[in-house]
């Protein structure tokens, strides 16, 4: 990684030659710490943005007391959660009760290991990056199930059952959407998937964005992925797990203080991760939309963050505008609409690639 020369230099200054393994380990560790800090800061910003957008749609002002324009509201909320008492219900299974939020937040963090923020700006550039993300996101259901079962509360348990069915169902269509994209790119590596969307064909310069997957055959898949991502992260209109009118707060009804904060953190972290994944798969990741000066002089990571911001704005608008689905409607949408459509699109994309691409 990029920092290895720095550690070698530091080792030389201290009079010891650092072996490659140690230098690699140190640079990875520093990257991981920086990434985690940045992500937590990003989550704080995103939660505030979510509330502000929601408020603006309803013609309210949203958080506006703590800090200028309420910018420090999330920090204040986090501090409040930390200083409260952790309450564990008497009938709860203590180990699993505390393990569930840890599992949720850990899975939300480790998914970022393979997300490329720019050319070469990735913690672990593995060959099966997209499969890794699919594996990690298919595990996120465990936080919900464990929390719901360990709480020993009927509301939490009902929510866990709903969550298990909902997340397993939408996992299927997410998987098929990923397959269409990787058929198009011919690779499971996320950096390669982004690079295949770079301007290499008929459109160059100001029209470079026409090479993004969203402007190809795959456009309907972006819509399916977007809606499935909403269902996968239990955001409205698919937040049946925490339907206030029926289940109080769903699987985390018994949680308080720091464990609750961990669930909250994990949920928003997954939302940002899925926005990032969407921008990698469909919107060209870190690539600038127009391949002309000054747009291609801007660092790729800024374009990546802007794209994540745009997708999150869309998610926040959906949350503010669309009413909650009924459970049978949710299941119908997943199994009877998204699954056949994405399956058909896998076949279509495979045929398209066979006829027009001919790579390798």
């Amino acid at each position: 990684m990029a920092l290895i020369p720095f550690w070698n230099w530091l080792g030389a200054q201290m009079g010891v030659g650092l072996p490659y393994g140690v230098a690699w380990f140190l640079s990875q560790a520093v990257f991981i710490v920086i990434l985690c800090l940045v992500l937590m800061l990003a989550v704080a910003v995103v939660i505030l943005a979510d509330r502000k957008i929601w408020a603006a749609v309803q013609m309210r002002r949203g958080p506006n007391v703590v800090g200028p324009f309420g910018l420090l509201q999330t920090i204040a909320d986090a501090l409040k959660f930390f200083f409260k008492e952790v309450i564990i219900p008497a009938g709860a299974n203590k180990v699993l009760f505390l393990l569930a939020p840890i599992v949720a937040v850990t899975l939300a963090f480790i998914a970022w290991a393979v997300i490329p923020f720019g050319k070469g700006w990735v913690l672990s550039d593995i060959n099966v990056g997209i499969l890794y993300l699919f594996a990690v996101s298919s595990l996120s259901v465990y936080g919900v199930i464990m929390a719901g079962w360990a709480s020993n509360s009927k509301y939490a348990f009902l929510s866990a059952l709903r969550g298990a069915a909902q997340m397993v169902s939408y996992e299927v269509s997410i998987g098929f959407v990923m397959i269409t994209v990787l058929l198009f790119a011919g690779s499971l590596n996320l950096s390669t998937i982004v690079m295949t969307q770079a301007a290499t064909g008929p459109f160059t310069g100001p029209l470079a964005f026409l090479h993004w997957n969203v402007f190809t055959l795959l456009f309907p898949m972006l819509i399916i992925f977007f809606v499935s991502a909403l269902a996968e992260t239990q955001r409205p209109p698919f937040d049946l797990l925490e339907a206030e009118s029926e289940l109080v707060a769903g699987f985390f009804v018994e949680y308080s203080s720091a464990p609750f904060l961990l669930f909250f953190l994990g949920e928003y972290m997954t939302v940002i991760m899925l926005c990032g994944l969407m921008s990698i798969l469909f919107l060209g990741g870190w690539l600038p939309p127009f391949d002309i000066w000054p747009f291609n002089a801007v660092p790729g990571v800024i374009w990546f963050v802007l794209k994540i911001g745009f997708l999150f704005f869309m998610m926040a608008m959906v949350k503010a505008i669309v009413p909650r689905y009924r459970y049978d409607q949710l299941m119908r949408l997943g199994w009877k609409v998204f699954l056949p459509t994405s399956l058909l699109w896998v076949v279509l994309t495979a045929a398209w690639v066979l006829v027009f691409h001919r790579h390798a």
Partner: protein
Amino acid sequence: MLQALAFYFFSAILVASALMVIAARNPVHSVLFLILSFFNAAGLFVLLGAEFLGMILVVVYVGAVAVLFLFVVMMLDIDFAELKRGSLQYLPFGALIGLVLVAELAMAGSVWVLKPAALAAKAHATPTVTNTEALGLILYTDYVYYFQIAGLVLLVAMIGAIVLTLRSRPGVRRQNISAQNARTAAMAVDMHDIKPGDGA
């Protein structure tokens, strides 16, 4: 060195959690230990350089199969003490099955040899393609019929499961979305001219 350390780490947790699957008192804990052992098996696959198999193991077994296990086990209302009481009488039978399995494995292992071609390929492995590509190349060319037959078997199993569990109950009100969407004001509203004093 680091690889050996990682191997012993994964295998130790794998064996311990596999033991806990049958030793745990609570069936939910058993399933969770099963998930832990799946994870460590995936870690061993990655250590072998078979990252595709490792990821697929996590996606299929941990992400789907074990979720449904957990789903079912959580919904069972089990009296744990009752469950434990009679289990010792099955011990001789279980031990016998285990012994037979171990003996069969040993017999199969003692005569199992790699083909010379496979050994030669193993000796100077040149990773020109990733193992995902290599698996795909073999699976969809040399073994394409077996692959298709496996898919067909799964399809038949799926249809069988649906046929066994699907029952049509009369008198259930279902939502018919196309009928709802096709409904117009002309179909829904009837105009009656009612004279004053007559009632409807």
